[in-house]
């Protein structure tokens, strides 16, 4: 267990000053998610353009440093990317946060990878993994137009 790995500078920064914490105007996809165990809530707003690229993305919500940082980093990262790439990133992130030690995506710059890997310290804290994955599962729901509120308890 290593608190320094969990609460890296970058996490604390994004946790304290989350980027994209607002409601995107004219969004065309959105989804809500919550963690009933701790009360964390997130609402993701997406604006996809005609080429299926993420024009705008933002979120509203409240939660612990890990969940806020994860949503903040995620929204920063997917801006400007194609939906198919975003879907691949979601899977890549979810695999990394649970078991793998690295990201395999070719669609991330080194800087982006470093940012995302800053969340990997959560792996050592099984009770906190859902804090990190809440916004990612909610993003999937938004992309798939499922319109169902994500209850993170129902995910592995």
């Amino acid at each position, binding site marked *: *267990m290593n608190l320094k790995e969990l*609460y890296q500078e970058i996490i604390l920064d994004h946790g304290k000053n989350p980027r994209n914490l607002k409601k995107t105007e004219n969004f065309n996809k959105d989804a809500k998610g919550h963690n009933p165990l701790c*009360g964390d809530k997130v609402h993701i707003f997406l604006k996809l353009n005609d080429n299926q690229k993420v024009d705008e993305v933002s979120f509203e919500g409240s*939660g612990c440093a890990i969940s806020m940082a994860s949503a903040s980093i995620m929204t920063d990262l997917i801006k400007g990317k194609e939906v198919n790439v975003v879907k691949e990133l979601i899977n890549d992130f979810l695999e990394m946060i649970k078991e793998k030690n690295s990201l395999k995506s070719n669609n991330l710059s080194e800087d982006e990878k470093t940012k995302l890997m800053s969340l990997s310290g959560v792996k050592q804290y099984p009770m906190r993994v859902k804090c990190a994955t809440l916004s990612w599962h909610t993003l999937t729901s938004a992309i798939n137009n499922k319109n169902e509120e994500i209850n993170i308890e129902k995910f592995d």
Partner: protein
Amino acid sequence: MNIDNIKKEFPIFNNKVHNNDLVYLDSANSSQKPQVVIDRIYDFYSKEFSNVGRSLHYLAVAATNMYESTRSSVQKYINAKDANEIVFTKGATEAINLVANTFGQKYLKEGDEILLTELEHHSNYVPWHYLRKTKGIKIEFADVNDDGEVTIENIEKKITPKTKIIAVTHLSNVTGAILPIKEITSLAHSKNIPVLVDGCQGAPHLKIDMQDLDCDFYAISCHKMYGPTGLGILYAKKKWLEELPPYQGGGGMIGEVKKEGITYGDLPNKYEAGTMATAQVIAFNESIKFLNKVGIDNIIKHEKEIMDYGQEILRKNNSVRLIGNPKEKGAVLSFTLDGIHAHDIATILDEDGVAIRAGHHCCQILHDKLGFAATARASLGIYNTKEDLDKLNESINKCKKIFNTK
């Protein structure tokens, strides 16, 4: 009273958590177990095991006597008039479900009101909520005030001619407020309304005397009283247990079973269907003996002393906000920390071996009212010391350092 010696009776404290001594501040969630309780479960299973109340062989008779002996101990401990007023359940949750279900079935109809408070744990709200759907009853909530307490005035305000039962906590598991149960029962009874008390936090920390409190129902959680999990107690005045229908059907609770019909057994069997948590009941007798040995007056005195100390040092810590400031307060210290979420606090404290709870503590109604999604809670037991609260404060300061807050 020597706390060091009492603490030595709890083997959990011989273990390290993340290489640190365990500072256990989560007794409101569940208390640790003294060696005598653990030994009793082992001994019963290894030397004396049998089911109770059925067979006629030696072991069955002995086990039945031990099982019933716990019932008598509980009766004495809570000063119930009659041992048959003690019903064993799988937990306090089941005890409240039992009352909500049977009382609702027999006495409630559409438009009737049940009065709860905003302090209630989900287990004293959700069982009543079912009656909204099945019976069309209404649920009213007595307001919690700014100090985190529910006054008799706020209860009285919500009583109407339609109020059919009042269900309140004895001691809030979030703010620590102790409710004026005697005043509540006296007021309610003057209007012919029965009172159920959720005693999950009251029973481990207060002197509980059923004849003095005069409540109609009192729900107890044994694992919060230095006892085993899987066991609760419903105290109910005999007239209710006689009048109300059975809750669950099965073996052990019957009188005669014929194809044409069934009669039910006498008290307390009527409410104890199926094989009960036998080992837990028998071991709980040791918890009662332990509580009697330490003495409830000593427990109250010790817990108040360390709680006052805890409040004092946390108040001096300038980013800690204590939740609630009730005049009568039990062994619970809930707080928030400026700029740091309760879950981050809990994770950082855990690294130091300091075990607290973070979240809504099964009290979402109260947290919504207070305006917090989550709070951190340090709750006390007989084994806690002032040093434990110093360690809590030190770890809180570590949170502030990591998050660079003041």
